[in-house]
Every structure is written in structure tokens, then in C-alpha cells.
């Protein structure tokens, strides 16, 4: 039997990996994928906790997180496409017009 802590640890590792990815990658799409990784690690926590507690709420939450992820993907990718059209790049180093 795998304990709840092991799932939570795994989720923590994935979450941290995602965070590192957001911090060190330059490509906006990859950053977005890293955020997706973070969301998924949270999903794993939710479902593990839901199983552990014997309640359905956590799994329902995951259901909604997936919907949110889909919506964010649609809007985020659209934003990246428009940005790409104007700047020919989606490197975050180029998202630097507004500063100071």
C-alpha cells in the first residue's frame, strides 16, 4: 500500500520542477508548459488526498482545474500568437517594452 505521504512528496517534486522551469526557461510556451506541470502536480495532490479522505470533493476540483487549464491554454496561446505576429518571437527576453 502506497502511503499518502509518498504521493504528496511526488507532487511536491513535480511542483518544484515546474517552478524551476518557469524561472529558468525563456520560451513563453515552455514556461506555460511548466505551469501546466505545476497544475498537474497539484491535481495529483488533490486526488491522493481525496482518496485518503474518502471524499469526492478533491476529484471534482481536479475536474475544474482541467477545465481551467484548457481555458488558459486557449487564451494563453492566442496571446502568444498575437505577440509573435508583432514581434516575431515568444522569448520572454523580448517581452521587455514595458519596464521601470
Amino acid at each position, binding site marked *: 500500500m502506497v502511503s499518502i505521504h509518498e504521493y504528496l512528496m511526488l507532487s511536491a517534486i513535480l511542483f518544484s520542477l515546474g517552478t524551476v522551469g*518557469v*524561472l529558468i526557461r525563456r520560451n*513563453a510556451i515552455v*514556461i506555460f508548459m511548466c505551469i501546466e506541470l505545476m497544475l498537474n502536480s497539484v491535481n495529483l495532490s488533490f486526488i491522493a488526498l481525496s482518496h485518503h479522505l474518502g471524499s469526492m470533493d478533491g476529484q471534482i476540483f481536479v475536474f475544474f482545474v482541467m477545465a481551467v487549464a484548457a481555458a488558459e491554454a486557449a487564451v494563453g496561446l492566442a496571446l502568444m500568437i498575437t505577440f509573435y505576429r508583432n514581434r516575431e518571437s515568444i522569448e*520572454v527576453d523580448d*517581452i*521587455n*517594452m514595458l*519596464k*521601470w
Partner: protein
Amino acid sequence: MYDKLWLIPFFPLLGAVINGLLGKKIKNEKVIGAIATLAVAASFGVSCYYFFNMPGANGGQHYAENIVATWMSVGDLQIEWGFLLDPLSAIMLLVVTGVGSLIHLYSIGYMHGEEGFYRYFSYLNLFVFSMLMLVLGNNALVMFVGWEGVGLCSYLLIGYYFHKKSASDAAKKAFVVNRIGDFGFLIGLFLLYWSLPVGSRSINFMEIAQNAHLLEAGGIVVTVITLCFFLGATGKSAQIPLYTWLPDAMEGPTPVSALIHAATMVTAGVYMIGRLNPLFAMAPDTMMVVAIVGAATAIFAATIGLAQNDIKRVLAYSTVSQLGYMFLAMGVGAFTAGIFHLMTHAFFKACLFLGSGSVIHAMHHALHEAHSHDDPQDMRNMGGLFRKMPITATTFWISTLAIAGFPLLSGFFSKDEILWFAFASPQGSPLLWIVGALAAGLTAFYMFRLVFMTFHGKQKTTEKARKHLHESPWVITVPLVVLALLALVGGWLGVPPLIGEIVGMANSFEHFLEPVFGGTQAVAHGTHALEWSLMGISVGIAFVGIFVAWVMYIKNPELPGKLAGSLQGAYRVIHNKWYVDEIYDATFVDATKRLGTFLWKGFDVVVVDGIVNGFGKTAHASSRALRFLQSGLVHNYALVMVLGVVVIVGFYVLR
């Protein structure tokens, strides 16, 4: 009967709104001026009515409140839009509306033909409205509304000639310095509210007066609270170290200087201390600070006044100095004397400012006609104007005599009372008296220097310009005459008992204010002989000041210049033996003048301005440094966010 108190501030507000909204359409200067002047005059009328029907005249409560609406309620604290009529506010009302209406009338003539005439009157009415809110407010927050309002109007009016950079800088400086003071006011108010025991917490002035005894007398709490309030007062009333804005404020039109920066707004700090007298009376340490700051400001500003050549700047430093006197009075517990000096000062200083305005007006016109680019405000360009402008000069003379403390004029009574208390009140000390008397002598000197340089001696204007110099129109001279009359006789309201016994007059001013200051007023102890002699000495010092001025600027006008030259070569001084007495006088005076210049250029400009600007620069520099954090790069932002999360979570979880 007292439920119409709100009419007093209402009229000027109405005037401001009418002129502000419709002024551009009305265009006719006379109509605009009339609306504004009548609005203030109406307030004056109502104030007079209430003055003659004071509450408690036939016994009973000595104050009346008129609550218009509830403003805010915070827990058990109810704050109202309420007005308070008591002897103190009644006197201030008369001063503000009375002097205010005269200055409005004067402004019609003075501002003739200026661009934005309606705007000027709208601001001026708005100022009177704010000042009346300040004076009439029955609680500290309504007072604060007025407090901020006068600051705003002062800001707008100083910067009236906005195309001059110096004017806009001065306006900004005034506003910023005032806000430092406001900060003190607010903190003081919060602390006061917070330190009163639950159940008696209030910011209503009458309730504060009743509950003040619940604080520990002389304790640290009440000292800190009153010091905070005093900080507020120093900002508004231009005391050390927050005084520098006032001389700069002379960039505004002259009637504004007369109304705001001499007669009314700058006295708000004095009024506020008078309002909170039960608190201040409980904090002897604060009172000492107030007295010392007041005395220091009085002598300090007087010294700087010696070195000024701009006619309005002399008056500005003189105002700072006179305000110092008022604080000195407050600090030694002579509240009545302080308010009395506030009133007489309003008369003669307003008259002086308006007189200088009349001179500047005439000079400006004349120089303009003569196509000269000389500075119309520089006294070195004037001289011998007495014949050209007799009414202005006469009124100016009277007011100058009053401010110099010439016996039996208004300034004499009020200044003398302050000096007597400075010496003989329990909180007073001979040292304070010496400083005060010296400042009085300096005042006499530089004021007469001003009069002599302006109205007497050789005319320094060109022949061409001289032809165009003439007396100002009646709208300008009438207020001058009225104010001069008040400066002449206003002092008799508060005759000290010493003289009152001889002429058979009571000190009606003190009697009138008795209900407000009765419990807290300090009592001066001393023999009649001592009082007579002190009075004699201070008058004597003033006469010395006048005499020296006369010697230097009338009898021997070349002397100062000559001296300046002769000081360079010491041997020439010895050579001209027969001038030795005068030289002695003059070198002494010259040294003092140099001190004045040094203080002005050194302390005033470098230190005080440096500190004020230093804060600004520090903020600016840190802003500049901080903004590089905002690199515009998403991963940096994300890094900061994660750093925040790690620090926050780390702190709480690992703790």
C-alpha cells in the same frame, strides 16, 4: 438662534462656486468683484450679529454648537459637520471676515486687468470658506478640513502667476511643508483619541476640554500629543524649522499675502493651540518648547529681516517674527495675550502688506510707463514716495508705529502684554523677555528702515517714471484707511490693568475670552514698578531701533554704503574720527545685518531648505534605485514572487 451658524461659511462658498462656474461668462470685473466681496461681507454681517448675541451673555453655557449633519461614525465615535461659537471663535470670525472683506475690496483695484480675474476671486472666496471652517469647526476633523482647505487655496494663490517658475516652486514648497505639519496634526489627533479612556473618547473640542483632565497632567502621553499638535502648528504658522515656505510665498499677489500669509491662515496654528489650551496647559514641557521655539523664531526672523531689500520679503520675515511672538505668548501661558496679538497683528500687518501692494502697484505702473526693467519690489529703487502717495504713506506710518510698539498704538499693548508674561508668568523667564525685547528693537529698526527707504529720502526712480507715480484708487485706499484706524485704536480693547487703572478702562478683551482661557491662563506676578520699568525698557529699545534707522537712512543715507567701503580699509575708519559715534552704531548694526544675511543665505537657504529638499531627494533617489528592480522581464518577476513565497512560507513553517 444659533442654528444659522452654517451661513457664515456658506456665503463665501456660494461666492466661490458662482465665480468659479460662471465667472468666465460674467467677464465684468466689477460684478465678479462685487459678488466675492459681498459674499464675505455677508459673512461679516452674520458674524457681527452673533458677536452681539453671544451665548452665555446672560449667564449659562458660554458656547453654542450648530450641528448640520453627521459626517462619520466610527464605533462609539460620532463626528459631525458641526460649528462652534464661543468667544474665541467669535473673535477669529470677526478678524477673518472683517479683514477678509476689506482685502476683497482692495483686490478689485489691485487685480484690475489681470488674466483670470474670476479665478482669483473664486480661490479667494474658497480660502475664506476654508478658513471659516477651520475657525468654526466644533471638532478636530472639521478643523482639519479647513486646515487642508486653506493649505490648498494658499497653494493655488501662491502659484497664481504660474508662468513664473519661482511662483510654482514656492507653491509646491508651501504645500509640502504644510503637509509635514498636517502629519503632526493627524498623529496628534489619533494619539489623543487613542489615549483617552474608553467612554470619554471624543474629538469634539468641548468634550476634549472636559475630558482632558483624564490624562495624566505633565505625563509623557499628553506631552507627546501636544508636541504633535505643535508640529502641525509650526508647519501652518511658519515657525522654526518649518518657516521657509512663508517668505517664498510672497510670489503670490500682494492681497493674498496680506490675507493668507499675514492676517489669517498663518495664525491658524496659534488659534489651534488656543483651542486646545486645556491640553497644552497640562503639558509644561511642551509649553516650554513652544515658548522657546516662539522666541527663537521671533529673533531669528527679525535678524533675517534686516538683510532684505525686497519690500514684501521684509514684511514676510516680519510676519514670521510676529508669529513667533504669538507662540511665545502661548508658551508662557498667556493665551489671551497671544490671541490679542493675533488680532492686532492682523490689523497692522494686513495694512502694511496692502500698503506695500499699493506702492508696488504704483511702482509697477510707473516703471512700465517708463519702460524700465527695474524690480518694482526692490526698496533700493524707491524713496521719497511720501509726497506722491500721501494716504498710503500715512497709513503705512501708523501701522509701522503700531508694529514697532509705539506707545498707545495697538501693537504696543499686545506686544507689551506678551513681554510682561514672558518675564513674569510662572512659565516665563527673564531670558525670554530679553530675547523678546531685542526682537522688538530689531523689528522697530527694520520696519523703519523700510519706511525710510520707501517713502523718504531721495527719489531713486528716473525722472520719466516719477511722473507716472500717483496715489492708488479708492478701492485700494479705503481698506488701508480702515485698517490703519484699527491699528491705531484696536489696542484699546485689551488695555493692561496697569494703564487701565489710569484711564479707567477695563481689559475687555481678556474679560471676553475669560470663559475660554479662564481656567488655564497663567497669572503674572510682579510689582507695578517692575512692570512700568520693563515697559519702559522695551519701548526704549524700540526707540533706539527707530533712531538708528533714522540715522542710517535719513540723516546720513550715504553712511551704510560708505561704511561698507570704509570697512575694507580699516585705516580710513580711524581717519574719519568725527563720525565715530555714528560709526560705532553703524558698525554694530552693520554686523547685525551681516549676521542677518548670513542666517538667511546660510541657515535658511542651505540648512532648512536643504533638509526639506533632502527628504525629497532621498525619496527620489530611492525611487530611482528601486525602479531598476522592475526590469520588465517575466522570469525576474516570477523569481521575486517565488522568493516571496519561499521567505513567507519558510518563516512561518520553520519557525
